[in-house]
């Protein structure tokens, strides 16, 4: 029922010299650039006395819109769950994302890039997180690769997993589908997330080797 093909992942860590951590990630045809700064000084408005305030800034290639704010909220919620926010009260961690190329799975690419950038910055995390996009086309077939024709997408699932317990930390869906289809998509994404975590591990190890 599902094609086992997964979009190729390629990444480069530490691409930006002036941020604390950065990563460029290509997931199939989608490319994102992420940078993490922090813990840094916090704006008085956003100051939290018990934990770090996590701020997310998402910039799309085209004109800014409320869609970007929506993505920022999703990313912020994920980062707040994963980062050890209570370690640095009265400070902030900035997660910036720049869309480079839209190949259909922007959100999962953004989440994965954010995770790699956090790893590269060395901010304390409770766990790493990986997002997987799964497409359901109009022939009711599941695929990790977006269909060439955008109109063929019946539904899109983006699921984000916790690396230690494997629990879901965020889910975003588009389109309409049945509960069974969602369950199946969830199963596929969960299996696939293991490969993404493996990719993260290899990327970080390779980066460390390069430095040495």
């Amino acid at each position, binding site marked *: 029922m599902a094609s086992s093909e997964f979009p190729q992942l390629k990444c480069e860590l530490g691409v930006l010299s002036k941020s604390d951590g950065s990563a460029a990630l290509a997931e199939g045809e989608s490319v994102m650039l992420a940078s993490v700064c922090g813990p840094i000084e916090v704006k008085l408005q956003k100051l939290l006395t018990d934990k770090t305030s996590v701020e997310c800034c998402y910039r799309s290639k085209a004109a800014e819109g*409320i*869609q970007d*704010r*929506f993505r*920022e*909220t999703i990313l912020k919620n994920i980062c707040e769950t994963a980062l050890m926010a209570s370690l640095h009260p009265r400070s902030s961690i900035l997660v910036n994302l720049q869309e480079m190329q839209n190949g259909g799975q922007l959100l999962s690419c953004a989440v994965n890039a954010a995770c790699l950038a956090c790893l590269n910055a060395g901010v304390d995390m409770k766990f790493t997180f990986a997002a997987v996009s799964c497409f359901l086309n109009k022939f009711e077939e599941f695929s990790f690769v977006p269909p060439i024709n955008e109109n063929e997408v019946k539904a899109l699932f983006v699921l984000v997993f916790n690396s230690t317990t494997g629990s879901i930390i965020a889910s975003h869906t*588009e*389109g*309409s589908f049945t509960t069974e289809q969602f369950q199946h998509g969830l199963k596929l994404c969960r299996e696939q997330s293991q490969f993404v975590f493996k990719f993260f591990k290899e990327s970080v190890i390779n980066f460390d080797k390069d430095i040495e």
Partner: protein
Amino acid sequence: MAEVYKSLNPLKYYRDYYSHDIRPDGREFSDIRPTIINVGSIKTADGSAIVKIGKTCVTCGVKAELCQPKPSMPDQGFLVPNVELPPLCYSKFKSGPPSDQAQTLTQLLADIIENSKCVNLEDLCILSDKLCWCLYADLICINYDGSIVDACLIALIACLKSVTLPQIDYNPALEVKQVNLQIRRPLKVNFTPVAVTFAIFDELNIY
């Protein structure tokens, strides 16, 4: 006494109730708060609704305007939701440009309408590539007390179901529009999407 206890040790306060499978206000876990819908309360709008879920209160009004369809989708009209979270509904909201939360809610509602296809946008087209309806659905939160997405969606759908659009006599050759306010037809709403908000407390109880 309970009030003092709640503010001194809020976690324990809730856990005490939840250990008996009941909420502090006496509801079971799967019960929703009493919900009231009032439709058509704003006479000057083309459709309106006020929804209360418990103490949360959201009002929605639809304004219909005539405009030209987008060249990329000449047979479709527009349905534009907009959520406002003014400072009067919650002390943490500040006045000024729409907050991130309000923008996120707006986008979420737009996504729900688009994905559920509850309103067929082609019904809003009067003449292809020339004239269509643009429905502005403005949602204003009066009291922010949880389950805001649920309240907004109920208000929006109830409001859309009450929308009536006047008949338009359009002469494309002369580009003359005649609005007949006497004859109004209701907007067709195909589906009723429903949102339900849950929270997980202590990983055990679904609240």
